[in-house]
């Protein structure tokens, strides 16, 4: 029954049929593979053109880019002059103009530190983290606030993008260490420690940030002795730090859970104490694993810095909002919000891309 067959010379590979190749193949595969697919392509394409063309026309082609007063904006395109004239206050808030160089220095330091921490190729991550957690905040504080011969600028004059970045950085720098402690506490074998941490974490995770900010502004003053006055910004910062430390704790905890218990046991077998085991063996691995989670929390924190406008701080968004009721520039709300959206979007999208990049790197490393 069995047929016998033997191929003397191999068949060499050939090119695929034309319809499968190049652009035509791609178009056929992805856009026009069947009647339904083709119809969807046409519909979505038409919708995209219909929606996109006016937007591009408004934002770019018909837009007014140069000028210095309202009168320059007469066309029906976007009036970017509106943004340009208030760019200074959007960035620095009410910071005295003569002192803005101090903010610039902090910005530059911030960017340098950010690159040092975030670009994998740059060495010395531990040093960078220490500088970022300990040195930079002190330097930045004195530069922004004054002291050592610099004129004092009270926090009520801080505002704009600068304030947004201050809140975001303090938020992350404060919430990460606290989050780590809480995460360790939640996994502790001591019932009281565990209980306190669970209650603390679940409390903050259960309430909206806005109620925390309200609490910070109306209840904190009640908690301290009468003649003791804490700064409004500081109160908000404490609230934000406590709130986000709970979310950070859950992120860190997920990392701790992913580390096999053998790691801790191996540390114990080597005679390391609890803090040595955690600090030298478990935490470094766990934190590396959850960098994407930390970055994602940071994105959420960054977006939520906008909430401080509700308790009367003038962050970037608050100034944009205030601009919509500026009587000499009425009618440019859309420009303001679009610009703000762009700024926030670039930052958040960039960070989320970074987090995906790190995730892929981690994935490869395992």
């Amino acid at each position: 029954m069995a047929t016998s067959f033997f191929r003397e010379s191999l068949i060499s590979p050939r090119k695929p049929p034309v319809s499968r190749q190049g652009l035509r193949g791609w178009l056929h595969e992805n856009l026009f593979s069947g009647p339904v697919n083709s119809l969807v392509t046409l519909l979505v394409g038409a919708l995209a053109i219909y929606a996109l063309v006016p937007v591009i026309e408004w934002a770019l082609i018909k837009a007014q880019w140069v000028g210095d007063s309202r009168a320059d904006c007469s066309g029906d395109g976007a009036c970017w002059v509106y943004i340009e004239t208030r760019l200074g206050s959007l960035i620095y808030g009410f910071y005295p103009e003569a002192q803005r160089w101090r903010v610039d220095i902090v910005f530059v330091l911030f960017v340098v530190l950010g690159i040092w921490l975030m670009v994998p190729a740059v060495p010395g991550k531990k040093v960078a983290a220490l500088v970022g957690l300990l040195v930079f905040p002190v330097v930045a504080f004195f530069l922004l606030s004054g002291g050592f011969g610099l004129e004092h600028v009270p926090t009520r004059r801080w505002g704009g993008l600068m304030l947004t970045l201050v809140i975001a950085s303090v938020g992350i720098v404060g919430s990460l260490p606290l989050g780590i402690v809480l995460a360790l506490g939640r996994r502790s074998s001591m019932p009281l420690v565990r209980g306190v941490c669970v209650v603390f974490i679940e409390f903050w995770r259960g309430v909206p940030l806005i109620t925390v900010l309200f609490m910070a502004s109306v209840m904190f003053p009640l908690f301290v002795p009468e003649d003791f006055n804490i700064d409004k910004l500081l109160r908000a910062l404490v609230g934000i730090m406590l709130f986000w430390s709970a979310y950070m704790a859950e992120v860190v905890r997920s990392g701790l859970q992913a580390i096999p218990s053998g790691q801790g046991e191996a540390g114990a077998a080597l005679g390391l104490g609890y803090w040595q085991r955690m600090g030298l063996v478990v935490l470094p691995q766990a934190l590396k694993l959850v960098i994407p989670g930390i970055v994602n929390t940071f994105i959420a924190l960054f977006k939520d810095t906008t909430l401080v406008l509700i308790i009367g701080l003038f962050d970037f968004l608050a100034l944009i909002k205030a601009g919509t009721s500026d009587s000499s520039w009425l009618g440019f709300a859309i420009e303001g919000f679009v610009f703000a959206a762009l700024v926030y979007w670039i930052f958040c999208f960039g960070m989320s891309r970074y987090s995906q990049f790190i995730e892929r790197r981690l994935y490869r490393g395992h």
Partner: protein
Amino acid sequence: MGSVQTTSSDIPMIELQRLNKWYGEFHVLRDIDLTVRKGERIVICGPSGSGKSTMIRCINHLEEHQAGDVIVNGITMTRDVKRVEQIRRHVGMVFQHFNLFPHLSVLDNCCLSPVWVKKTPRKKAVDTAMMYLERVKIADQAHKYPGQLSGGQQQRVAIARSLCMHPDVMLFDEPTSALDPEMIKEVLDVMIELAEEGMTMLCVTHEMGFARTVADRVIFMDEGQIIEENDPETFFNHPRSPRTRAFLGQILGH
């Protein structure tokens, strides 16, 4: 293990005629010609990446070919969904990684397709399923979930699940490659039994003992083409192509 009696007839069950397939620019299947007659047992082997899986996946249209013909039970494969489903009813398939549905019990895995596709009354479908589960010696686990079974047990359930559709031909894609050694035998025993009952089978496997016992023909593939094809006796004892020899040398540890 004695040799299984040949029961094949002359009716062609599967015909692959000058089958060609490309992944992008990569020519995976080159001028494949193969006829499987009813009742015939064929073993396909070859180095990894030679296109074995791709070839048998073209038979039930899990992959689409671009040139040539696939004819199953006299029906020529096209893109037409109804026709593809019609062909798939006659063709059972067992995967390397079992692919049982983890959210359904063993019994429900077996009944899903008969009930929904063949419109079998559920009571009858359950009876059939229990019969096949009995045959693969796993009836006592019928109400467990796949995650609760060992790999070998899962693969036996997967075979029973395919059989519940009463297929005319069974395709096996390395059914024992993901199993621990002690479980390989329990699956092979089921497959041998199936062969003894006269099922038409097309197996991609490197279990050469199985090939010697069961196969009517052994096919060696490399670089997307059929290099050599012979009855097991000749294939193993007098391989003609140097590639086949090299491959057998590796796999049999000569």
